[in-house]
């Protein structure tokens, strides 16, 4: 009966196979080969790539750096986004204007914005250093020193993606019922206590959602690094995806970069799952 129903499933299934299943399986197969620019082809070298990866300090450094960058930027984005959302949540003058204004960075193209930021950070031509000079902080070697370059990448990421947090958290705030706030006023709670006991707990679920979406996105961080610092100075701002890009697309070590990608996928899936569980336990209180 109704055997034709499978025909209707076919297009979706084909797309799934073509863009997810086949590339994944093919990558697994390639990661066990020594496919590179000299010897293209699917030979079998066993776990050699994985043994090499285990010893590859640059890869693990990039992964650690990415973790710090991801967690750091997402926490900053969350804090800033929440603060901005709280600011325009209640009745303030021109709140519609501010709500739109705060979203502008998100609507711009990341690569274009990175180019603009590279100009801003430029040590002799950019506008930032003269301003810092003028207010007495002094010019900073933004893109030529490891710590500063790392900070620069973080600033751009936070600038670009705080609006996303702001948007989700504002939507969350606007959907909250009014009664708990009235009750807190009647019970005599001040603004800080109201935030800690009423607003924040009620925002738990949406906060976890917003943080996870941003963590997943941020763990793929690549274009900002590519445009702003090209991983430099040295490898001090190199993230995992950028390193895989160098190995695969610049050095054409296809087999090796396949093993890097797979390891990256597995590490990220496990880490994000664990983080998600921890966040839910920590922040979502309305499970009965």
């Amino acid at each position: 009966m109704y055997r034709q129903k499978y025909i209707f499933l076919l297009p979706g299934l084909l797309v799934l196979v073509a863009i997810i299943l086949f590339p994944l399986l093919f990558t697994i197969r390639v990661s066990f080969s020594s496919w590179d620019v000299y010897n293209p082809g699917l030979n079998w070298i066993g776990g050699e790539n994985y043994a090499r990866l285990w010893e590859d300090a640059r890869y693990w450094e990039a992964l650690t750096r990415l973790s710090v960058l991801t967690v750091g930027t997402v926490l900053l984005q969350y804090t800033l986004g929440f603060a901005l959302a709280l600011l325009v949540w209640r009745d303030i003058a021109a709140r519609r204007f501010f709500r739109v204004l705060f979203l502008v960075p998100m609507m711009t193209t990341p690569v274009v914005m990175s180019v603009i930021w590279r100009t801003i950070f430029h040590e002799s031509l950019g506008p930032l250093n003269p301003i810092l000079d003028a207010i007495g902080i002094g010019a900073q070697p933004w893109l030529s020193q490891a710590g500063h370059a790392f900070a620069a990448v973080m600033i751009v990421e936070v600038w670009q993606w705080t609006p996303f947090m702001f948007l989700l958290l504002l939507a969350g705030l606007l959907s909250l019922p009014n009664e708990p706030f009235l009750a807190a006023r009647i019970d005599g709670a001040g603004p800080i206590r109201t935030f800690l006991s009423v607003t924040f707990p009620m925002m738990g679920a949406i906060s976890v959602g917003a943080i996870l979406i941003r963590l997943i996105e941020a763990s793929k961080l690549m274009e900002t690094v590519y445009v702003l610092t090209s991983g430099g100075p040295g490898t001090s701002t190199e993230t995992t995806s950028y390193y895989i890009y160098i190995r695969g697309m610049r050095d054409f070590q296809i087999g090796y970069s396949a093993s890097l990608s797979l390891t990256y996928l597995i590490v990220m899936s496990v880490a994000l799952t664990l983080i998600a569980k921890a966040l839910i336990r920590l922040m979502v209180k309305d499970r009965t």
Partner: protein
Amino acid sequence: MAEIILENLAHAYAPGAPYALKPLHMTWRNGGTYALLGPSGCGKSTMLNIISGLLRPSEGRVLFDGQDVTALDTGKRNVAQVFQVPVIYKSMTVGENLGFPLVCRGASPQKIKARVETVAERLGLTQWLKRPANALTADMKQLVSLGRGLVREDVAAILLDEPLTVIDPQLKFDLRRILKEINEEFRVTMVLVTHDQTEALTFAEEIVVMNHGEVVQMGSPTELFERPATEHVGWFIGSPAMNFLPALREADRIVVPGTGLSVPVTGPLPQGELKIGFRPEHATLAPTGGHIEGRVARIWFEGSDEVIGIDRGAHRVKVRASGTSPARTGEPVTVSVPGDRLSVFVNGKRLSSG
């Protein structure tokens, strides 16, 4: 615990806008139970929010025990409010919820613990104290909301904003009983906002009937039932509603033409439409010899009583009779009403002498 005086109070949501609450003056006794009764949008919640301080009245003053609290912030007024939707702080346990108002007021941990235990004991929540408040059922959450009010010993009044609407019918009954007991035990002024007349009539000593932002009548359940100030009250209170029949003045009597209903009047009457009203409970059926003749159109039950709808021309008269009456649908019947049970309404307002 306090006596609440609403002094020349009125409220409009914007300057120049029509009154959401028309000017009124009212005194609420310390420890009394009051109900604000009226259809949706009649201004009862506005009035409640003015008392709790969530809303600042555009005119007049609110006095608690003679002290002007109009400009005082909600938290400083020491009122408690229970909302239609049960409000609990979901990140806290039941105990922490109950203690929250005291924590906000900086009470000592020992005092908080003692008060929370007393209140929990009274409300039967002791076994739940350590449980997350979010795991409770709706009616227990309402008890927690109520408990947050009781935990403050000096609470001036407990305001209840349709707190029984989302509660299951059987539990509603229990909760109403608990509210009454608490009122008697703690002698705390309680104000219930409701659109359910049964709820108002069973809970309150005094009922404030509101309509279109105006206080139509304030009085005990018996007063509202026996002597409704307006046609609206007669219609709104009682089930089924009061009967109204168009009337005329004939010399020194007001009569309903074609019936034996008549009320003596002396002196001049205000100009306007005349009606005679009576309660279905006060009318009785007789096969012949009653005041009104008609035909039984419909019979239905309300509790153990029977309500008989009788058509007389364009008007339907309802009679409430206990038990089963001999009336049959379609048969002619007569209705008699004692003369002292008749009220005269001019332009919708009750004539005090009638």
